[in-house]
């Protein structure tokens, strides 16, 4: 009995992709329904912990995910299509409860505007704005210095329209959103806005840390005392590793073969030449690389990326920045496009015959 119930819970997948905010569609969940789902989820969690032989008290969401992946292995590519077991709050989108009581009278005073949450939010924000102005006037009246601590706007951003919609549980139009953001900016621009710091923080988000901070490895030294560094690169299906030695003569070996023999085509050798030529170090380094996979051009591109990455250790930070801007350090994302059914290739359609 319990097992069927748990099974029923396991089969639920997120059919709703986008958060259906304020949709008065067919899927209206009552509170009782949500409560029952929560109970079933907790029960199922304990059963699952029992099944896996773990302690039901300390069974976290990650353990649940791992257990489900173990019990129901799936080869589907789309991660969202695989079986999952998540707390009902994540599975069922948040919806607005009924806004009016039994007598039909709405709870909120702005209900008949249509966008009650939005207008109430604007109302609140303007209230804070007036608050700050009053405080400012008070300080001026008392001749006290105004606090001038500038908020660091560079590391934060306002909520996006979608995030605002999620917060308010109702649709927000573009104009409304812009007006709200403008009001927030006006509020922040005031000198004494620090009073309402907590309120403002509800609507701002930290910008994620720059992903450009890649660690450059220091040079290593081999037995002879020659400095060397390694780098890896890839292009299409080719994978390459390069080891660059200092105090060299410009000799390059690929998979144990000289580049003249491995890359008879001039174009591939030019690709290998590019990082060295860019830094002006053509005859100064020796390179030993291994490469596999891909075709001739892909292997050349992979070695180029690997050698550029390895050269970072030999070179100043400014030059690394130049290399990055020249595109020497970026992985080329182009791969072979998939063939679609009903077409001969990724783009080519079958020959069109009139009859």
């Amino acid at each position, binding site marked *: 009995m319990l097992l069927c119930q748990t099974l029923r819970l396991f089969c639920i997948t997120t059919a709703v992709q986008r958060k259906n905010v304020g949709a008065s569609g067919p899927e209206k969940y009552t509170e009782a329904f949500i409560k029952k789902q929560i109970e079933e989820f907790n029960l199922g969690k304990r059963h699952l912990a029992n099944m896996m032989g773990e302690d039901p008290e300390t069974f976290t969401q990650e353990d649940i995910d791992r257990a489900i992946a173990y019990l129901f292995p799936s080869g589907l590519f789309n991660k969202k299509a695989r079986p999952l077991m998540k707390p009902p709050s994540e599975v069922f989108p948040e919806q607005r409860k009924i806004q009016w009581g039994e007598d039909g009278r709405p709870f909120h005073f702005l209900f008949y505007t249509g966008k009650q949450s939005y207008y109430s939010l604007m109302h609140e924000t303007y209230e804070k704005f007036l608050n700050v102005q009053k405080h400012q006037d008070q300080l001026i009246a008392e001749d006290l210095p105004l606090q001038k601590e500038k908020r660091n706007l560079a590391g934060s951003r306002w909520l996006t329209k979608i995030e605002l919609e999620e917060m308010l549980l109702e649709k927000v139009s573009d104009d409304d959103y812009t007006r709200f953001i403008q009001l927030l900016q006006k509020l922040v621009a005031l000198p004494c806005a620090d009073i309402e710091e907590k309120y403002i923080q509800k609507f701002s988000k930290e910008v994620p840390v720059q992903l450009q901070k890649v660690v450059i490895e220091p040079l290593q030294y081999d037995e002879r005392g020659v400095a060397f560094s390694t780098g890896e690169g890839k292009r299409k299906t080719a994978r390459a590793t390069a080891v660059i030695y200092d105090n060299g003569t410009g000799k390059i070996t690929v998979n144990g073969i000289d580049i*003249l023999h491995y890359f008879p085509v001039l174009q591939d050798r030019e690709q290998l030449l590019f990082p060295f030529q860019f830094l002006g170090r053509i*005859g100064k380094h020796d390179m030993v690389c291994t490469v596999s996979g891909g075709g001739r051009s892909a292997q050349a591109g992979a070695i180029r990326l690997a050698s550029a990455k390895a050269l970072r250790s030999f070179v100043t930070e400014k030059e690394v920045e130049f290399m990055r801007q020249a595109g020497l350090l970026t992985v080329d994302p182009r791969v072979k496009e998939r063939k679609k059914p009903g077409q001969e290739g990724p783009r080519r359609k079958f020959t069109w015959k009139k009859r």
Partner: protein
Amino acid sequence: MAVTTSPSEAAAPPEESRKMLRSLKGLVCRSLRLDRGCALHTAARDGLSSVSSQDVPAERPRAVFHTSESDPAKHTEQHEARLYNIPLEEVKAVFPHGLPHRFQQQIQTFNEARVMVRKPALELLAYLRGSNFAHPAVRYVIYGERGTGKTMTLCHVLHYCSRQGWLVLHIPDAHLWVKNCKELLQSSYKKDRLDQPLQASAWLKNFKTSNERFLQEIKTQKKYMWGKQESTEEGRPLGEVVEQGLARVRSATDAVGVVLREIKQQSHRGSFRLLVAVDGVNALWGRTTLRKEDKSPVSPEELTLVHNLRKMLRNDWSGGAIVTTLSQTGSLFKPSSAYTPQELLGKEGFDALDPFVPISVPNYSPREFESCYGYYLERKWLQHEKAHTEDGKAELRFLSGSNPRQLDRLAGPL
């Protein structure tokens, strides 16, 4: 060394699309690093000024790469990595056939024939000078990777020998005899052999040009019958045999055979030295692409020319030397990575040529590369303004891998 006013500038079309892209990138980098401004224009102006100022110190750089010693007999290690001039009349006389095609084009463009003196050639010359001609002929095999200068080494040695007054038997490319033959006649001399009249007559013509005086001196020792009516008596100069071969194309192959036989028999007498120079000797022991009329493949022994040449290459005669080159470029049914004597000659050829002195020809050494690059610069063959810089030189060295052929092909469009 006359300063020639050759149309070399017009002959080299400056096709620089790829190089320009790279040069633009390099320029962008430099403008970021050094200063702002129209870097492109300054680079162009600098290029022009460098070209015009090159005429002034033209004498000094010329002395470094060139040597005025045009007699190969006097070439020593001092002259290594330098280019020496062969007067054009000598070129026509000594090398009617045999120079690589690209080198011939270069001679036409620059209006002079400059050959670089390199170590393998010097080695060979030293051996030749010190060899005892009473002993059987020593065989030298020049081998090396593709495009490293084996044929040019052979030509250098040829020049030396012809200057010294040797009789030079030069087969420019043995591969020509085993492939793309239009006519195959059945030999009248031996039933199971095949003649190649066209190749034989072409070779006889060139042989005549290069060894005029010997043809009058050497006399036949036997009577030869060409068909039913014509014959050459004993004691006639060899020139007559050659004439016969040229006149009657059908018997050209037999004429070649006769010439080879006579020369071999008379070389030990000492009246002349004989040099047998074969380029692409691995053709003689490989397979052919020729087929008989019944579509069965022809093996090299069935070709008269090849058969006679093989007899020549045996070291059962004295009074000369045999210098041969291996060549992968024209070879049939051999992988392109093969370059050692073992691989290219096969077991049969190796056994036939064994014992021999192998001489390996490597890519350009740094000095040789400098001198070749300097020569191209001086002849204004490299028109691109970036090619004049040190960076351009390093780029050329990297991209060509110091391989002479690659460098030549790279420098062409620049």
